[in-house]
């Protein structure tokens, strides 16, 4: 069943639906989503997809831990962090606009249309790798969102200000585990060391600005990721020092002719991830239950 607008969807009887394509609420319902003056709408759409896809894809990797976490406390922690990021993804994909809704963006785009950094899509791996990826991702995203809270776009600014509070908890969770593993047993130390080594080739990409990011930074709407490196390095240095670990010394993973995740060029893992993420929605488009 489909509706012309969110109002019809919520007033229909027995309207509590929880699935894609079923009159799912617009998370920005009732907000003024006009594009700020002097900003190219297509640029704003692409930028929202970048930040939204980062959250969506990392959230998916975290969801893969459901029922697989080593302890019950971590099971709920990882699921909650994944839920926070899914919520951020919903807001950002809805903000992307461009005549498409959040579900359409999540379930009916192909791999080359996703703009997430490649770090997000790397295979799930073990608990050491989970913590390594989350530490890097949350540290980077917190630095980004705390600056984006000053965006001239009131919607992005509000999404970012809300996200800062959430990602602060995510970063602390990952950082505390990194210290516990690194300064733990010989075995735990090796697992987190190896995890960091696996994700580190994808760290450099986080700080390379895409031309759209630069244009929107110029317009006062976005954040130039190259300005985040100093804060990132400082936080990582604090965590790794407490964890008695070294910053990995590994070569960066090159893109294809200089193109990486922000350009829609991904690693092999991305296709498998999307196949799982999108299979139900594509098998039953407009399906309801």
């Amino acid at each position, binding site marked *: 069943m489909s509706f012309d607008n969110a109002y019809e969807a919520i007033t229909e009887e027995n309207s509590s639906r929880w699935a894609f394509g079923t009159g799912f609420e617009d998370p*920005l319902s009732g907000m003024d989503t006009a594009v700020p003056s002097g900003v190219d709408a297509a640029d704003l759409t692409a930028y929202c997809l970048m930040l939204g896809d980062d959250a969506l894809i990392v959230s998916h990797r975290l969801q893969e831990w459901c029922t697989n976490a080593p302890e019950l406390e971590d099971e709920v922690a990882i699921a909650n962090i994944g839920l926070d990021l899914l919520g951020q993804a919903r807001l950002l994909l809805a903000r992307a606009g461009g005549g498409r809704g959040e579900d359409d963006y999540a379930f009916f785009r192909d791999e080359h249309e996703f703009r997430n950094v490649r770090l997000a899509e790397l295979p799930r791996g073990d608990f050491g790798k989970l913590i390594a990826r989350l530490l890097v991702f949350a540290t980077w995203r917190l630095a980004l969102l705390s600056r984006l809270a000053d965006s001239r776009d009131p919607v992005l600014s509000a999404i970012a200000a809300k996200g800062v509070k959430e990602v602060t908890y995510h970063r602390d969770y990952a950082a505390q585990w990194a210290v516990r593993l690194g300064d733990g047993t010989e075995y735990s130390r090796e697992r987190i060391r190896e995890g960091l080594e696996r994700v580190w080739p994808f760290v450099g990409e986080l700080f390379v600005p895409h031309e759209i990011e630069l244009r929107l930074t110029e317009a006062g709407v976005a954040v130039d990721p190259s300005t985040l490196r100093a804060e990132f390095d400082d936080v990582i240095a604090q965590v790794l020092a407490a964890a008695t670990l070294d910053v990995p010394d590994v070569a960066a993973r090159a893109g294809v002719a200089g193109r990486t995740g922000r350009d829609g060029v991904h690693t092999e893992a991305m296709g498998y991830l999307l196949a799982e993420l999108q299979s139900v929605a594509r098998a039953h488009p407009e399906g309801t239950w």
Partner: protein
Amino acid sequence: MVTALRDARAVAETVTDPELPMLTLADLGVLREVSESGGTVIVSITPTYSGCPAMDTMRDDLVHALHAAGYDEVEVRTVLHPPWSTDWISEAGRRKLADAGIAPPGDAPAARPGPVPLTLGPTVRRVRCPRCGSAETEELSRFSATACKALHRCRACAEPFEHMKEL
């Protein structure tokens, strides 16, 4: 007109949170504004967390409650700014949380300019046990059954309990 508006607000204030049914949305600080425009009641709510899965149910509950009270045209709007803070939970809401065995939040961390500070150690905040009142408690996990709560244990009565964490 003024009377009708007050009634609509009073109706909206009776709607409870789907996950913490002992609290109303007003107690929780989620209900931000009730106004009326051209015969339509406009209710503004704000999510506690970006991924709060209860938002849809809150909308439904608000619409149904206002319909039942005779308001045919109801619009529920989302507001994200300023972001929800646990400081908005009312005194009554805090008492209801404690009565339900959930330790209420302390003061939310103040926003400061510059980088967000990293917390590497265990939480230093002493959360009082909602069962026996002891301050001898420890944090087990910063995340619990919902994103808004942390899991703690009382060292005096040995019972685990939830704490609504500061946001």
